[in-house]
């Protein structure tokens, strides 16, 4: 018989660090910046605060050749973390304890904890945290480590200060071994693309080479996503089992109604009937085969589509961001109505921009900027569903040559579950429902762009026609004079008048 060794989640993640994007010092460096920035953004947006973020990266001289010890410090003006939660938020890797849905960048802050864990493993230094919640009179200062084997926080130092300025937010600082030199380009690209989608963000980035500032251009904060219950179609079997295990005291009917959206008394009774059980049947008595049966009923039952209240599209912000960066002569943008796949709600928003600073793509490339839950997806765009949609559309219909004109596409997908194709979360799978929404959204924009370009071409044609016609009318006039032997001098205005007659 095989013997399984029990390991703590911290150790599990350490042993499988490539899953979370820490497979090499370059990738780790990028992932750490990204996770921390995303946690900060979430901490602001969740409460409707316009984000003000500062990232400082300091490459020290120490390290093993190419890889250096890097000190990172990220400061935000988010909601902060209550003092008592700090040790667990940063010092213990937890499996998700919430069974509700809301659009997040990361999942349960796991990425942030992985970053700290990685830093601790590679440099053996503790993490420093300063935080204060909204309205709190105190600033809390922690120096702590994670006990990897026990999966417990180990607080080395704690202090309290007076919060004189009423500040709220979080400052986190730690060191890690990474290759900043190689990852810098990717980090800057990430921040640049983030600023396109989030013009309401203020971000200051500093490293040994200088300072980069993304100034806030919009105060239009996206709608705060609401927490909603799970949709029965969107749950997997494992999650269903765990949900049942923490609701053992409930009756079956109560369990269904309380834990899922789109299940009311009537539907609950209907489902229970299909299970051949009573509404009062206690959840704890459910057998494995009952659970599998329930799971199958969920998959096949005709529920209402999942609620989109948990989603937070950026809306007009995308237009503001594109204008700021590319200064295009034309933008078409639209946000689709909510849709869903396999019980997961999603919203697609796309924009097509033309002209300005948008480059004409180099050989057979397409200027495509992809975002998922407000995160830019930078690599592997070739395999992405959005790329497939763009390549499948017959652009001749719109008289647009996407390879030869200064056109850029922007696709933002928000969902409670983004169907990434790989663990690296760099590209999105070709889910038919998603494909269709992206296509409809892009086509709508394409029609607008096409109309704009037609107008522009017509104008240019008219302009050309005007001068051309005038030239030839002058010739015609000249020859006609010579033929008729008349010596008339014609006023320029007449020739111009003829040309502009229509």
């Amino acid at each position, binding site marked *: 018989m095989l013997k399984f060794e029990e390991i703590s989640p911290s150790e599990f993640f350490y042993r499988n660090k490539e899953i979370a994007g820490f497979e090499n010092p370059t990738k780790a460096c990028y992932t750490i910046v990204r996770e921390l920035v995303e946690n900060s953004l979430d901490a602001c947006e969740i409460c409707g605060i316009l984000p003000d973020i500062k990232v400082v990266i300091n490459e020290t001289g120490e390290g093993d050749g190419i890889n250096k010890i890097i000190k990172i410090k990220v400061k935000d003006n988010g909601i902060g973390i209550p003092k008592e939660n700090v040790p667990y938020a940063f010092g213990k890797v937890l499996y998700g304890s919430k069974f509700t849905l809301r659009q997040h960048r990361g999942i349960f802050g796991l990425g942030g904890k992985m970053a700290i864990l990685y830093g601790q493993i590679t440099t053996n230094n503790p993490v420093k945290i300063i935080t204060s919640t909204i309205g709190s009179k105190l600033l809390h200062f922690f120096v702590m480590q994670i006990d990897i084997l026990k999966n417990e926080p180990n607080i080395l130092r704690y202090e309290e200060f007076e919060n004189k300025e009423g500040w709220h937010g979080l400052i986190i600082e730690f060191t890690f071994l990474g290759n900043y030199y190689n990852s810098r380009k990717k980090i800057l690209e990430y921040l640049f693309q983030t600023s396109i989608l989030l013009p309401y963000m203020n971000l200051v980035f500093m490293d040994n080479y200088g300072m980069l500032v993304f100034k806030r251009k919009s105060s239009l904060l996206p709608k705060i996503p609401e927490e909603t219950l799970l949709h029965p179609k969107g749950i997997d079997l494992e999650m269903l089992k765990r949900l049942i295990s923490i609701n053992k005291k409930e009756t079956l009917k109560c369990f269904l109604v309380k834990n899922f959206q789109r299940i009311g008394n009537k539907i609950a009774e209907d489902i229970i009937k299909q299970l051949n059980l009573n509404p009062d049947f206690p959840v704890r008595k459910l057998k494995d085969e009952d659970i599998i049966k329930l799971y199958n009923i969920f998959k096949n039952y005709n529920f209402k589509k999942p609620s989109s209240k948990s989603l937070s599209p950026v809306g007009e912000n995308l237009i503001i961001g594109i204008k700021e960066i590319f200064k295009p002569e034309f933008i078409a943008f639209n946000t689709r109505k909510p849709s869903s796949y396999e019980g997961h709600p999603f919203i697609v928003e796309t924009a097509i921009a033309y002209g300005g600073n948008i480059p004409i793509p180099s050989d057979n490339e397409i200027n495509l900027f992809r975002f998922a839950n407000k995160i830019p997806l930078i690599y592997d765009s070739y395999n992405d569903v959005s790329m497939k949609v763009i390549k499948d559309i017959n652009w001749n219909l719109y008289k647009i040559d996407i390879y030869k004109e200064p056109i850029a596409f922007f696709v933002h997908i928000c969902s409670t579950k983004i169907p990434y194709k790989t663990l690296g979360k760099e590209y999105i799978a070709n889910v038919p429902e998603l494909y269709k929404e992206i296509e409809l959204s892009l086509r709508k924009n394409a029609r607008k762009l096409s109309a704009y370009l037609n107008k522009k071409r017509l104008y240019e044609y008219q302009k050309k026609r005007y001068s051309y016609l005038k030239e030839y009318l002058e010739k015609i006039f000249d020859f006609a004079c010579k*033929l*008729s032997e008349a010596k008339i001098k014609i006023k320029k205005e007449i020739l111009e008048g003829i040309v502009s007659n229509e």
Partner: protein
Amino acid sequence: MNKEEILEKFKELGKKILEDITNNNYPSITLPQRTVRNIIYDKNSRVVRLGEKKITRKASSLRQAKVFAQLLWVAYFSKENLIKKGKSCSLRDLYYNSFNDIKIKFDEQDESDKIVVEIETILGYPREYFHIIPEEKSSIFGDLTIEYTMPETHKGQRVNLQTDPDGKNIGLSIATAKFIECNAKMVIAIEKGAIFRRFVEEQVYKRLNAILIDTGGQAPRFTRMLIRRLNKELNLPVFILTDADPWGMHIARVIISGSALSAHINDLATPEAKWLGIWASDIKKYNLPSIPLNQLDLHRLETMKRDPRYEEDFWSEQINWFLKLKCKAELEAFSKYGLTAIIDKYLIKKLSELKN
């Protein structure tokens, strides 16, 4: 043909354009349509001409403005550089002349050729009248004295067309010359140079008192113009001698009724002219060596069957003869009976038959 008349026509054209421009309109010209549907065969006058349909060329689009300017340039060029100076040029010359003005320059000769036809249609005169001349060869021989009216260098000079045994080449100068004295009683137009030559050598001009014309295949317009003038101005009957095949038959018919290609030009046809032969029915009658009709010949006959010019009994009978015999014969076929047989055994007999 009157030089002043042409210049006047050009003047009118110029005035019309100036009027359009000063009235704040796009310049436009209205002219008869040259489409197949507007080419009409007038059974009474036996002439092909254009119908009543008109089209308007307007310099309102980019393409049209250029073509319009080119058209006026051709008119201007022919007026100033040709007619006024008493000079002429070929279609090819005209095309190269356009290279002097980058805005006017024709991309292909085809384009300038089309514009020349357009001007012919506007004026109703062949391009020869505005001194743009073809390069086809045709000749005339006979006792006719003419006086040149152009070019300036030859104006007033007289010449008898019997002086050159090779025949005089029919060009602008002969076509526009005055007829001073004519002792001939008829005109015989022949499709082929070789037979024309034999007729000269055998003194057919003397024996029949005839003016001989070599049409060099399908008669050029100068030649058709001259044949018409000989018929109208000197009252000479005209006879046409061709091979016995659909093509020869059509050469005769074009001299009589005109062609679709020049339907826009008046005064080219000679409706009184007569096709002397060789008729399809003659092949059998004279037992001539014949050649079977090929696909192209048969196809041509089918097209001719639908052509209103061939509706007259005699002509449609000839087509049917061809289709029945399925063969053709050349003028030279008479050489089977000796070199002069075509004159002694055929021409003279045929003429007397036709006169009766």
